[in-house]
């Protein structure tokens, strides 16, 4: 099974029809296990208390906001280098989903920040760079929605996505530099590698569940987009016949 074999949309739709129930089922089961671990098993943090439970949605959403952008970057390469016909379908469908998860990461981060920091928003390095990422998602969607011709829209979006990939590390770095300059004392720091296994396992399970959710929605959206293009082609045939 090579990737190019699935350049044929009909074959791709067949594959999706076969795989989707399994992926959706696995996602649902992982979510059930993850939520059970979070609410029944995972301990409360000795500093943050039960508020740490917000982490189990916040961190997977933040992870997905990056993962989704990377999916779009891979698709952008597929569009520009190999002209793979499914690549621009994949990129176009990933953008709104990525924007939704980035928004969730911001919203849950804010809800986590209010009890921890005492305000809804701080110009913390991590929050700020996620905000910039969110704006970039919206810009990408605006660009591809504004250009009417789907092929041109896909290529313009692909160029912008790749420019974004090059810039995201620079933005991240500069925002961190800016942040340390203005807020020398870190208000609150998440454990990083020192996180306790009792919390790490539920977090990983939830991250897996969210990733499965992304794959499910992404495949469904891609199926819709393929049908939409098919309808567009059929309408054009109909119009040319009517002449």
């Amino acid at each position, binding site marked *: 099974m090579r990737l190019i074999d699935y350049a044929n949309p009909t074959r791709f739709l067949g594959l999706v029809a076969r795989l989707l129930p399994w992926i959706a089922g696995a996602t649902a089961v992982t979510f059930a296990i993850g939520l059970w671990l979070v609410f029944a098993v995972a301990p409360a943090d000795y500093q943050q208390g*039960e508020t740490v439970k917000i982490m189990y*949605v916040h961190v997977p959403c933040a992870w997905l906001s990056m993962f989704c952008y990377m999916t779009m970057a891979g698709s952008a390469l597929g569009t520009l280098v190999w002209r793979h016909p499914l690549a621009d379908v994949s990129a176009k469908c990933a953008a709104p989903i990525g924007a*939704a998860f980035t*928004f969730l990461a911001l919203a*849950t981060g804010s809800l986590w920040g209010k*009890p921890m920091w005492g305000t809804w928003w701080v110009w913390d390095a991590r929050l700020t760079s996620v905000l910039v990422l969110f704006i970039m998602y919206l810009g990408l969607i605006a660009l591809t929605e504004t250009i009417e011709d789907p092929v041109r829209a896909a290529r313009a979006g692909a160029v912008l996505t790749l420019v974004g990939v090059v810039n995201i590390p620079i933005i991240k770095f500069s925002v961190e530099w800016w942040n340390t300059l203005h807020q020398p004392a870190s208000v609150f720091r998440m454990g990083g590698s020192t996180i306790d296994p009792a919390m790490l396992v539920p977090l990983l399970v939830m991250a897996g569940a969210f990733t499965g959710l992304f794959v499910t929605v992404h495949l469904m959206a891609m199926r*819709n987009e393929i*049908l939409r293009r098919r*309808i567009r*082609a059929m309408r054009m045939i109909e119009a040319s016949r009517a002449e």
Partner: protein
Amino acid sequence: MLGTHAGFIVAAYGFAVVVIAGLFLWVGLDGRAQRRQLAELEARGIRRRSDVAAGGEGR
């Protein structure tokens, strides 16, 4: 059970549920609309060039 900040935890999870449900609703309704239009076009006898050979396995 959720401590002093239960409201925030519930709000965070509730928010996530709403946004994810919104995603599924968007994808589901969009898919239904596309399928209906495709069925309409097929009922009117429009075929894609490649479908003449493949026999219309559009789903």
